[in-house]
């Protein structure tokens, strides 16, 4: 039951933020839309209800979002911008082991890797990501994981597992 309320509340907040108004009409439509969507999708979206009440996970998610958008992205962007200017590229596809298990955590790691310029996840097989890397500095999977995805996995583990 709780997962339906939480998903509905999230949809409602997104709807109201997107509409940018608190008129009766918007609130009523928002309530209707969020109720229908939460009934339809909550059972697929939420696997473990207990995790919804863990405030630490939410704080980690907010901290990770801010850190990702500022520090991590600036570093990666400046690196690729430098390569655009000096054309110092050695592209290739390396194997990166992935240790997190849940689907959400894997999606977060995959999204984080792909959203950082310089690395794109091409495929996933047997607990390995195959990452297209603009400047391959190592062929060793463990070493590549340390450079590419160790930090993302740390936060994915804290948020979703």
């Amino acid at each position, binding site marked *: 039951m709780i997962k339906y309320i939480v998903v509905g509340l999230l949809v409602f907040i997104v709807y109201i*933020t997107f509409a*940018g108004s608190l008129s009766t009409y918007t609130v009523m439509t928002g309530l209707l839309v969020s109720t229908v969507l939460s009934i339809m999708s909550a059972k697929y979206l939420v696997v473990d209800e207990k995790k919804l009440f863990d405030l630490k996970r939410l704080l980690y998610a907010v901290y990770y979002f801010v850190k990702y958008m500022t520090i991590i992205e600036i570093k990666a962007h400046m690196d690729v911008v430098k390569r655009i200017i000096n054309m110092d590229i050695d592209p290739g596809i390396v194997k990166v082991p992935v240790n997190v298990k849940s689907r959400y955590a894997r999606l977060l790691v995959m999204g984080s890797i792909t959203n*950082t310029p310089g690395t794109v996840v091409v495929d996933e*097989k047997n607990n390995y990501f195959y990452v297209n890397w603009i400047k*391959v500095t190592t062929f060793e999977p463990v070493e590549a994981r340390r450079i590419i995805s160790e930090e993302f996995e740390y936060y994915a583990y804290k948020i979703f597992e």
Partner: protein
Amino acid sequence: MIEAVLFWIGAFLFILGGVFDLLAAIGMIRFPNFYVRLHAATIGAIYGAVLPLIGISLMALGIPELPGRYAVAGASFITAIILLVVAPVGSHVLAYAAHKSKSVPWSPVVDALEKDEEK
């Protein structure tokens, strides 16, 4: 006072987004093949689109006389978050399809995926 600060931070992010878009476009032209150009496209998608959208949202909050400013701000912010979630899926699917169909000739330093598929 706070509105002026929001407006100028937003304007800064907006202009920064334009600069990164320009750099991404130069990268698209200079890089040799599809797989490397994907990285330039990522620059255009994250700092070239998500950042200016957040900038627009802050700018809209900073202009009190703008009609419907909360709608502009809210819609921009939600769009930025959704873009952040769906953009990597698009990049991944493009790379996956290009690699599976072998339609892009390139000379990588190492191609672990092809090696593993041959096994």
